């Protein structure tokens, strides 16, 4: 993909020469790209091509075989603004929201308890929580135990956190799984709003992002390169 060339957009995240090997298979090699404020980036590729691996490397949960991920650090003690995420883990994670395959919702807790824990855990403000529940259409379910919800409601409970998040970098792995049409278009609108106020989104999905297609949607395609030797 080509990096955005708009002069005022600031660089948020930068991947340098990422190489990933899983089970002796090379998933991607020397992958570099920059992510600017306002970008929405879709990571594409067939199953097993390393989409989730790439996202997890970007969050810092996994380490790449080679290469590193840099982010825009605001800490005044650094002259260089771009810093490795592994070096300033806590600062990076203040700026990061990751939504994975597993929703992290506890069946033993109510919808409201789950949401307020998730928001507070990431240091965001719990004040607008009721509004967030309305946004994901779960108003009226707030006192239900999460174990009694449907799969879609389960996902919505987890997604409600997006509405409260102040983190500029969103990394979302299949956010639309089990979400209905209306929900998908609501989320797309939310993504646009997030990008417009200076955030960035890196996501994987098998949906066509119809609402986003004519905006600044960018794509990273991971090829299926099987068992290739390299040095």
């Amino acid at each position, binding site marked *: 993909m080509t990096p955005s060339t708009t002069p005022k957009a600031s660089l948020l995240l930068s991947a340098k020469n990422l190489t990933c*090997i*899983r*089970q*002796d298979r*090379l998933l991607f090699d020397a992958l570099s790209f920059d992510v600017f404020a306002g970008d929405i980036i879709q990571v594409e590729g067939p199953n097993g091509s390393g989409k989730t691996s790439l996202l997890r490397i970007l969050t810092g949960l996994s380490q790449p075989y080679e290469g590193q991920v840099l982010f825009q650090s605001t800490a005044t003690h650094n002259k260089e603004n771009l810093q490795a995420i592994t070096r300033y883990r806590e600062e990076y994670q203040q700026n990061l929201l990751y939504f994975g395959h597993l929703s992290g919702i506890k069946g033993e807790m109510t919808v409201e308890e789950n949401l307020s824990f998730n928001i507070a855990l990431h240091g965001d403000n719990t004040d607008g929580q009721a509004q967030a529940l309305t946004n994901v259409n779960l108003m009226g379910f707030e006192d239900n135990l999460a174990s009694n919800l449907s799969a879609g409601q389960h996902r919505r409970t987890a997604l409600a956190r997006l509405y409260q998040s102040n983190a500029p970098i969103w990394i979302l792995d299949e956010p639309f799984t089990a979400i209905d049409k209306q929900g998908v278009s609501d989320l797309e609108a939310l993504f646009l709003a997030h990008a417009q106020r200076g955030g960035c989104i890196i996501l994987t999905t098998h949906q066509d992002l119809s609402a986003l297609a004519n905006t600044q949607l960018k794509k990273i395609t991971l090829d299926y390169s099987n*068992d290739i*030797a*390299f*040095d």
Partner: protein
Amino acid sequence: MWKWLHPYANPEVSYHLTNKLLPWFSYLAAIFLSIGLVWALLFAPADYQQGDSFRIFYVHVPAASLSMGIYVSMAIAAFSSLVWQVRLADASAAAMAPVGAAFTAIALITGSAWGKPMWGTWWIWDARLTSELILLFLYLGVIALHSAFEDKNLAGKAAGILTLVGVINIPIIKYSVEWWNTLHQGSTVSKLGKPSMSLDMLWPFIFCFIGFSLLVGVIICLRFRNEILARNSIRPWVRELVEQKTQ
């Protein structure tokens, strides 16, 4: 990190280094062990109290101290892997663990075989034997954890953390077991005091000790080489190597 160590973080360089070291280790180990063992078992004088059963000492003591030494080296390797991200350190720790476990087992078996004529029983809860047994458990834990992970890289990291936790605990365990031992059976057992060795016993012992250490070096080199190859199987230099061998 130290500049001179850096080239050895490259797998290919260390592979060739082990190749160069291996014959030296092997020949020296063979020489030292054959001299040491023949001297110790045939020519060294028998102990005036314990008779010939004392000769097991020439195997038991090197095995016991090497079992400790290997664990400490594993911990150093684990530390450099976790702190300085030296990737090969993982491989060397993985190469060492089974060797250490084997030497611990040898120390235990020879210890209890020595105990039979001394104490009239195969096993006694002697402080040193007990700590050696616990050390064996620690080794087996590291090996089991290492083999439980499918990803070699993660296996190395997890086993490294466990090794470091273990190395902090070993002195505590050793101290507490010794303390427990004096508390419970201090007077009933005549412990094996350190025999004041005469020179004609000391020299064969030194030869045996060096010989066994070199043997450990040989086995670890062999295993380390295998670990490097297994971890780098997709690298071109490994493939070339395989092609050369098969032709």
